């Protein structure tokens, strides 16, 4: 099978047709240097704002209201599960305690200001041990009025010794899991009796003790006292501006919504120790608001054990300097919060906590796309391959843009070689390519107000040769909102910009 070379086609045509005329003029006819010019479509591209923003995050990144108005949302989520001092102090109630009388109180300690009503024991064991020397059988009885069995009864313990002569008798361990501790005046009392079999007389032991091991609680109820709960520091990254070079953006109505999900059963008040916005230029600006340290956080009541209550608070322009904080080019929100339990020290409020109680803090930065920008520049790099266009001697690109957006776009493209050195640029200077659609007083683009612009870009032979050496194109896009960035505009999800591009290529055959 023979492939007919494209370039020699005309030559063969002439040779075959004209050499038969036996005329010298038609001997050795060559191809002329003709340069046809071909017009072909290159690409069509449509960019909706919803598509444009979708690449920056998951489905929750952009929300769209019923009118199609778009808002960027950035989320932070921190959970603090902190074991309270009360649980720690309860856990410290272990060891061997001597009983000096038939009614003794264990040194049950609680944090200052804590008033324990009762606690549900999660784990722990208890053992009684003593020494006896009696000549007749005795009955040992112990009673723990502050210790309630899972059946709801006061725990009592009886043991008959028929030969009560031993230096030390250790009773079997008692598993206290599921028992309820109801202290009396913050004390755990133990009552014991040793009854002589013959007479029923009560006698006291000289040596008797109580051992508690691994004593923990899973639920406590009472007045929890005042305590600071630390919520870990978190940073929300605002990646929308990751390709920013310079320029400013001003959002008309930004918000920071703080949601606290509280499963501790007592009142809490927020204390935001850190609420800073980090800018792209390195600036750090603190969010200021009279409410920053005074948000009262709701809490579940005694009949809502296991549940949680959510408190939401929104920082906006009316109660903070948020518009100043989130203007420019914010790239991160750095925050840290603390929760103050029982801020008013009201001992009449009987609360609870479990060993799984927690504070969950969700911070959401909301940037409604209503604002203005001027000269906001982003950069991106695109791979290109002109290797199939070696025979092109010049080109003219025709770019048609239809823009529903109230944003003007200035484009410049730099052609880079394999070393990322600039070979050439598309324009000698930035040129408006996509004009902004006109807006009304509310910053809304009226229907049928899209802006169509046709731009011709001529590239001569030398420049096209330069382009062919490029491996990548560095595209810089400068955005400005309508009216040179002076007018705030609203961005809706159905607004789109369509770019259609064709080209005329002069080809040397």
């Amino acid at each position, binding site marked *: 099978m023979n492939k007919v070379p494209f370039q020699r086609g005309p030559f063969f045509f002439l040779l075959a047709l004209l050499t038969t005329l036996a005329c010298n003029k038609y001997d050795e*006819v060559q191809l002329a240097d003709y340069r*046809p010019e071909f017009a072909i479509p290159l690409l069509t591209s449509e960019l909706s704002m919803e598509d444009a923003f979708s690449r920056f995050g998951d489905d929750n990144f952009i929300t769209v209201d019923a009118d199609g108005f778009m808002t960027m949302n950035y989320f932070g989520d921190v959970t603090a599960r902190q074991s309270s001092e009360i649980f720690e102090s309860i856990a410290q109630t272990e060891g061997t305690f001597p009983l000096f009388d038939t009614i003794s109180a264990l040194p049950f300690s609680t944090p200052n200001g804590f008033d324990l009503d009762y606690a549900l024991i999660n784990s722990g064991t208890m053992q009684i041990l003593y020494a006896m020397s009696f000549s007749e059988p005795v009955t040992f009885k112990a009673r723990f009025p502050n210790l309630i069995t899972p059946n709801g009864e006061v725990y009592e313990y009886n043991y008959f010794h028929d030969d009560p002569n031993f230096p030390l008798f250790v009773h079997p361990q008692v598993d206290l899991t599921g028992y309820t501790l109801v202290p009396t005046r913050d004390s755990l009392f133990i009552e014991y009796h040793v009854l002589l079999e013959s007479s029923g007389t009560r006698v006291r032991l000289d040596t008797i003790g109580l051992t508690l091991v691994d004593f923990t609680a899973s639920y406590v109820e009472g007045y929890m006292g005042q305590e600071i709960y630390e919520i870990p520091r978190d940073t929300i990254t605002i990646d929308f501006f990751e390709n920013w070079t310079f320029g400013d953006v001003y959002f008309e109505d930004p918000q920071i919504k703080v949601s606290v999900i509280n499963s501790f059963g007592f009142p809490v008040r927020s204390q935001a120790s850190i609420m800073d916005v980090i800018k792209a230029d390195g600036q750090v600006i603190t969010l200021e608001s009279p409410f920053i340290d005074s948000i009262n956080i709701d809490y579940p009541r005694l009949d809502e054990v296991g549940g949680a209550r959510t408190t939401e608070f929104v920082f906006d322009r009316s109660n903070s300097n948020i518009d100043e904080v989130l203007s420019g080019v914010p790239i991160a929100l750095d925050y840290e919060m603390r929760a103050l339990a029982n801020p008013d020290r009201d001992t009449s409020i009987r609360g609870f906590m479990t060993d799984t109680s927690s504070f969950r803090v969700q911070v959401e930065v909301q940037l409604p796309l209503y604002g203005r920008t001027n000269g906001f520049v982003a950069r991106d790099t695109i791979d290109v391959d002109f290797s199939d266009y070696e025979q092109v001697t010049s080109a003219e690109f025709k770019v048609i843009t239809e823009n529903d957006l109230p944003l003007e776009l200035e484009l410049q493209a730099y052609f880079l070689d394999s070393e990322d050195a600039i070979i050439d640029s598309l324009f000698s200077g930035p040129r408006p390519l996509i004009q902004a659609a006109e807006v009304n007083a509310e910053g809304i683009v009226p229907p049928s107000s899209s802006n169509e612009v046709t731009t011709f870009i001529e590239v001569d032979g030398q420049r096209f040769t330069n382009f062919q050496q490029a491996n990548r194109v560095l595209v810089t896009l400068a955005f400005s909102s309508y009216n040179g960035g002076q007018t705030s505009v609203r961005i809706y999800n159905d607004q789109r910009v369509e770019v259609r591009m064709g080209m005329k290529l002069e080809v040397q055959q």
Partner: protein
Amino acid sequence: MRSNLLQFGWSLFLAFGLLTPLAAQQELGTHFLRQHWQASLTNPAFMTEHTIEIGLPSFYFNSATNGLDFDQLVRTTVEGQNVVNGEALIANQSENNLILADFHTETFRLGLRFQDLQISFHHGLRFNAYLNYPASLAQFIFLGNASAVGETLALGPDIQLTGYNEFALGLAHRVGRLGIGARAKLLTGIGNASTENRRADLFTDEDIYQLTLDTDILLNTSSYFRINSLTDFDLQVGVDDFTAGDLFNSNLGFALDFGLTYDLSDRWQIAASVVDLGGIQWSENVVNYRSNTNLAYDGIAVDSLLQSASIPLSETLDSLGELLTFSETTDNYQTALPLKVYLSSRYQFGDSWAVGGLVHLVHFRETTNWALSLNAQRRLGKVLSLGLSYSIRHDHFANLGLQATAQLGPIGLLVMMDNVLASNGSNNGLSFNLRTGLNLAF
């Protein structure tokens, strides 16, 4: 840049060009060479004086256009190099442009005359090429489509490339003043490529030059042509490719020639004939290439230019290359031979001079071409005869023809050209033909 549409267009020119002498048409001077059997090719009723005629290989070549001047097709650069003159091609072409070429060889001929009856047999090898291309095809190839934005370019050429054997048995008889003749011809096709439908319209939109290709193409081929893709095809045709195995095959056809002569007087004869009434049924190595689509290409759809990691430039060219594809079948098909009509009148002045006039029509592929010729012949002694003719053909008025015959004993030689001015390149190159012959006559 790979321009596949462009390459396809060139392939058509190329196919035609490589099929060297091809395509049918107007042979005028031979009609007046009455002393040689070759004249009977134009009218089977013509009989010579000889009892036995043996025709040795005789050759005929013809090429013609209806607007393109071959002389203008090639120009000489300042450096002295001959190059294709694309600008002249564009400037001088018509809305529809014909390029025709014939190559005939009569390998052997035997004629036996019995008083007023003549029987003849000959074998001929025929290669015909016909190309009718629209002006916009050449425009597209040489200039591109950028100058035709908003317009539709018709790119589909009409082509027929045919090679066949002709085994002819003729019979001529004179009854009084009337002469009648007929010839039956068995045809065996060597190869063919012909378009049955040829619409290929390319529209370039003014928006961003979106392309719309509307095709209704049917290219029937037998042996000559294989298309693997728009840029990959196999062409195997031409005189050099003929072998003995091509004499007989299953591509069978049949044609008839009819002719009449009538002597109005001893010196004045009128004649009429119809030649090549018939065709060939192609069934060997047949492939039918079809394209019947309306394809639009709007460029590559990029999800988002501002988000793309690459600009798909190569995809544009690849997509263009896929714009035109062919489906293949193997259905037998028929082609018709160019039908020729000769109407002539000849007057003999004494023994030396004869003058004649000829109206010649060729009907082929829905096109009828005509020619008028005036001829004068003078016998110089017993050996030599010279003829001069003036013809009007293809709307061109400067065709000066020359015929020369010599009879050296039994050996007869002839040379005929209908447009001698084309041979030296000094005049128009719209048409050119040449016939040579060597006969033995007893």
